[in-house]
């Protein structure tokens, strides 16, 4: 199992690093987004948005 996850960091190309950084950034981006959307203190404020379109015309 350890062999499977072993990484030869010295063999990483520029493209590999760009890809790795984007992947990690996306992961944290999703975590932050989910936390912001799901925190209980924002519930009322966010859910109020859904009523606004019902009488827009």
């Amino acid at each position, binding site marked *: 199992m350890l062999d499977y996850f072993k990484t030869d960091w010295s063999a990483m190309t520029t493209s590999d690093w760009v890809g790795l950084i984007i992947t990690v950034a*996306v992961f944290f*981006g*999703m975590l932050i*987004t*989910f936390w912001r*959307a*799901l925190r209980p203190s*924002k*519930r009322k404020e*966010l*859910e109020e*948005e*859904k*009523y*606004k*379109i*019902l009488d*827009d*015309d």
Partner: protein
Amino acid sequence: MDTTVKPQYNDGVVKYLTVGAIVFLVLGTFLGTFAASQLAWPALNFDIAEITFARLRVMHTNTVIFAFGGMTLMATAFYTVQRTNGVKLWSNGMAWVTAILFTIGLLLVVVTISLGMTTGKEYHEQEWPLAIAIALVWTLYTLNFVMTIAARNKETHPNVYVSNWFFLGMMIAITYLYVVNGLAIPVSLFRSYSLFGGVQDAMIQWWWGHNAVGFFLTAGFLGIMYYFVPKQAQRPIYSYRLSVIHFWALMFGYVWLGAHHLQYTALPDWTGSLGAVISLAMIIPSWGGALNGMLTLSGAWDRLRTDYILRFLIIALAFYAMATFEGPVMAAKTVNALSHYTDWTVGHVHSGALGWVAMVSIGALYHMVMKMWNTEMYSMKLINFHFWLATIGTVFYIVAMWVSGIMQGLMWRAYDEYGTLAYTFAESVASMHPYYVMRVVGGVLFFSGAVVMLYNVIMTIRTANARQEVGTTANA
């Protein structure tokens, strides 16, 4: 006395795009049904180069995806951005220029493809002059949408409703995906070669190809869903927070999936595995979104009995859930080994295209026609008839392709006791015939529904003024 002042919007261009979309739906489904008929009865190509299957199929995909789908997205985006932000379009003139040029561009695409002018890149067949023109028109569309949101009154509309997020995400993603995949070296007015070569070209192609599905045919139409389902149901969306999660998960996740189209190719193995893993992970937000739409009807499911437009919107969500489960399963390598290059893929695409994209579009288009012409539909019974034609047609189509595709996959990899192939390719083609006929039946049903819709909409528009006058007289 009614003292409320109804806001005035720029609906002229939306009306044009709405009718245009329905006309292209009729044309596109006709081309598709004709192409399907040629597969069942090849003599139907009549030895005319311009309508042989190879060209007809691409004319069909461009008409339904870009002409019908694109005009529906433009109509609904221009319609909803005004209403959700309480302002007219930033530039009505630019919207008209966008709509007219888009129509002309798409007609030229269909004509040039029938003449054999193609890049050969799936869903990006337009040669470079048309591709540049379409990209510029798309940029005008995006600019107008963004500026309309920016022009809203921040005090009365401090936040931007979630349907606009989906539309904007679609516009931005499609712009860079389309431009990067279209990078090419022109060698003549209607001939060019891709800037990329070999496996890189394949990867870029499917990075675009799958995201045309993910953003153009999913994110944009989810924008439609998040506006028109609550409006038609006259109930707020089940959970606004879930819609926010749905949006960001889609934006972050979808761009990784393209590699699942290239399993067992020269593409590095890990890339295909990554595409498959993220595809499976995408079931969660996709189903979250589908449930969010369907649960909007909680406590009011009985409305499906009488509201035929709502039926279109809700069954679209059922097909969306089904297709977004089937797709990831087909991306998994074990299933892909059987399904790839078979009709199962064609069936999957149409379960999304007919069941999800077309159904949700049809629901939204009917809704907009009634609102913009300020009248009831000419015939509600015809909407119900259309619903059943479309639903039964879709089911016929996808069931035929499931059976045909799985049979193909099994026949292609069957061996006899000597280790040689049990069937020739021609034998597998011959075995497909009954299912190709069944697909034609499904296509004819769906096409007939589109014709019924066009008739119903034309009659609604023609009789709108008369029925408004009758209503006014009755109320007086």
